[in-house]
């Protein structure tokens, strides 16, 4: 766990430093405030007995669900860049889908652990599971936040699997998921655009949705084996959209090269490995599922972010855990780490 902690500090500070040169000090300050706040939250979370999450799982889930609905309420909802994902709370904007992720994982963990005997059946296992996922899916599609939906769907499917789901059920789920995804891109112009870009990069409008992918790839590719060197990114200044947000991996890749990128991926995998060791030691099924869900969601989200930057997954708006600028994401991530720490202590 010490190692995992070191990893967080390392990458968070790396993210901060990388950003420092890219943008104004106000952003550094803001991120710093979130960072400090996040660490306080981390400490608090690590002291809250994880069993409480089980008790309040449903409540938390419903609360986050409610918050997510708020983005559609014009007084507090806040649209940016073609998507409604934010709500205003005082001076800060908040992305409730981040909280929704945590709430959903906690609820799912408690739900699966409560029905581990029924999980293999269709009626009491798969069907209710799909209904829950569908609820969350509906709201995320409406926002739209397909990236987070992807994270949640993959994570929950894996949790369902770990929790004892049958292989055939998993297979059915994958097929169903693909069918839904297909239906989805047919309905949503925003998603359709990006899938088009993904499948057919040269024909798509270079200045439109293909632009970010193209610029990200140029940044990644021009990093070469060793990278341009720390702070030497050129792409981040004017070519790459959101250089400190979702595209931060591209900046990282340009500066640190292939070696740095593989190192980063290895760190994420190592983090997951250490995390899994902790939850394997836990005795409580809920703790196991909650821990596994949190860990997997974090790594999957990061990989989806990296994957879309290098063009193997359609572009989605999910941040790179610990590294991207984004207050709610950072705070939630740190709270999640706090939960893991607590599991390691008491589980």
């Amino acid at each position, binding site marked *: 766990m010490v190692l995992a902690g070191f990893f967080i500090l390392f990458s968070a500070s790396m993210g901060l430093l990388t950003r420092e040169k890219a943008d104004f000090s106000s952003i550094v300050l803001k991120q710093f405030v979130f960072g400090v706040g996040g660490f306080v939250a981390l400490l608090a979370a690590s002291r809250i007995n994880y069993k409480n999450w089980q008790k309040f799982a449903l409540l938390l889930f419903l609360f986050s669900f409610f918050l997510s609905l708020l983005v559609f309420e014009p007084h507090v909802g806040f649209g940016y860049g073609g998507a409604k994902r934010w709500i205003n709370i005082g001076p800060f904007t908040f992305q409730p889908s981040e909280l929704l992720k945590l709430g959903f994982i906690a609820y799912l963990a408690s739900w699966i652990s409560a029905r581990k005997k029924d999980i293999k059946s269709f009626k009491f296992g798969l069907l209710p599971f799909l209904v829950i996922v569908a609820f969350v899916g509906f709201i995320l599609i409406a926002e739209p936040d397909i990236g987070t939906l992807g994270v949640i769907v993959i994570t929950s499917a*894996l949790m369902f*699997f*770990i929790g*004892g789901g049958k292989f055939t059920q998993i297979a059915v789920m994958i097929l169903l998921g693909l069918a839904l995804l297909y239906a989805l891109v047919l309905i949503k112009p925003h998603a359709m655009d990006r899938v088009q*870009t*993904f*499948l057919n*990069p*040269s024909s798509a409008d270079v200045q439109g949705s*293909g632009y970010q*992918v*193209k610029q*990200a*790839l*140029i*940044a*990644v*590719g*021009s*990093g*070469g*084996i060793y990278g341009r060197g720390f702070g030497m990114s*050129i*792409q981040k200044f004017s*070519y790459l959209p959101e250089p400190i947000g979702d595209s931060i991996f591209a900046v990282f*890749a340009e500066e640190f*090269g*292939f070696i740095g*990128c*593989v190192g980063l*991926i*290895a760190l*994420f*995998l190592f983090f*997951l*490995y250490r995390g*899994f060791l902790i*939850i*394997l030691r836990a005795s409580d*099924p809920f703790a*196991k599922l909650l821990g*596994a869900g949190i860990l*997997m969601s974090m*790594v*999957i989200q990061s*990989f989806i972010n*990296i*994957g879309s930057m*290098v*063009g*193997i997954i359609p572009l989605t708006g999910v941040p790179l855990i610990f590294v991207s600028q984004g207050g709610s994401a950072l705070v939630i991530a740190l709270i999640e780490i706090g939960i893991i720490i607590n599991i390691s202590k008491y589980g």
Partner: protein
Amino acid sequence: MKDNFSLRIKIAYIFIFVFGAVIATRLFFVQVVHSNDYKELASRQYVAPSAGYFDRGAIFFKKKDGQLISAATIKKGFILAINPKILNDAELAFTKISAVTQIDKDMFFKSAAKKSDTYEEVGRRLSNEEADKIKLLKLKGVDIYSEGWRFYPAGSLASRVLGFVGFNGDKLEGRYGLEKYYENILGRKEDNGGSANSFAEIIMDIKKTVSDNTPNGDIVLTIEPEAQSFFEESLRGVLDKYNAEMAGGIIIEPKTGKILAMASVPNFDPNAYGGTKDLSLFMNPSTQNVYEMGSIMKPLTLAAALDQNKITPETTYSDKGFVVFNNKRIENFDGKARGTVSMQEVLNQSLNTGAVFAMQQLGKEKFLEYIKNYGFGEKTGIDLPDEVQGLISNLNSMRDIEFATASFGQGIAVTPIEMALALSALANGGALMKPYVVERIKSQEGLDKNIEPVQKRQVLKKETSETISRMLVNVTDKALMGGVYKMDHYTIAAKTGTAQSIKSGGDKGYNEEEYIHTFFGYAPGFDARFLTLLYLVKPQGVKYASHSLSEPFMNITKFLLNYYQVPPDR
């Protein structure tokens, strides 16, 4: 339940691990394999989105110690362009730019006057410093764009082998020589890179790495730059001295078929090929022209007869000075009769009647079989474009006169490269090799491909090769210009040839005053490291190849023996 859980969590971990591995694979191709493409794209857009992007594989000469010397590469520079729409003060812009670099005044103002245009090029191939200085001027409506172009550092050296890159329609590609032959390896598709692709691209990348036909690569030549350079100088010397139309030749490694040098002069400068008026200079006569080679054919005729045990070096015949076939009279070069002479003397004195005698001993059918086995009338398969094959179809008539003249190198016309390979069989123990100019293809995806020597067939017995080599060494030691070129410590096998050139215009018959001089030789005589073939088209004021080509041949051979530090063999 517990074990089940840990198993399932392991599977979940593997799933995510594979995800990470796929990303890492993709990163490898984007950042390591194709990194240069993206860097180029990046630098292009930092300057400006220009269409002048140009990339192409490199060509290298290979020195004897293995060092690679650039033969063709990419040079980078800048385009100076103006945007007439927003360029307000053309006078001021011109004055300021002129202080940095030379630009054409008329063209500049003509371009500047096209007010509806947004892009007019006014200067090309600017250096880095010039581009920087112009950027510092911060003139509104004056832009700098990067560009690249093909550059041949060695200028005209081996230009008729290398060829050049030019526009074919609106496509820039290799037009002649190696640039054309290896277009699929040297050429770079413009749309590669910059596009975000799916998993398909990862799979394609891996496939490219594993498979044999790598589209993107550099090539390394067998051509030795020092030897090539010395060779071209020697040829130029002969060309000037005898005011000939063309001088050309090949230096080949007889045992492998490797071309060490191949040249013909005059040649052209591929960096400025546009200035060449005579388009035939772009062709490579060593592979694309046929000549009647004259008496250098005689050793091939004699070797065939030796191989069938029909003659020995000591076999004698009665020389009347002429023979008659189909009412046509064939004479020796001087028309004189020599009485009873040996086969060795046939080579030493280059007697046409003796070559006819050897051919007759062999018989027409066998002779034709050997001619075909030597590779005449068949493309050698050298890796150069548009190779032609020798013309030997007149032998199909089976007329005696055709065979008689063919035995001493008249009436059949072959390419110099065919001739060089056939003669190599005399030197290398009787093997017909496939010639090649490129010995390695350096793949960008990682796996290099080495080209190995290929033996097409065995033409002569090993003993025949030794016997004919001994006879040809005797020619150099005793007969060539009276033996003045004999080297005390090296055996050199050689033979001259002089052929009347075919009348231009297609009439049958020969020009009395126009000749092609040929010369071949190899050294050391019994373990040949290199074989040199020279040809000189229409020399003036000199009748015999022994006078025109002996000295250049000896100079080249001495250079090679010294340069390659070949130990003495006698």
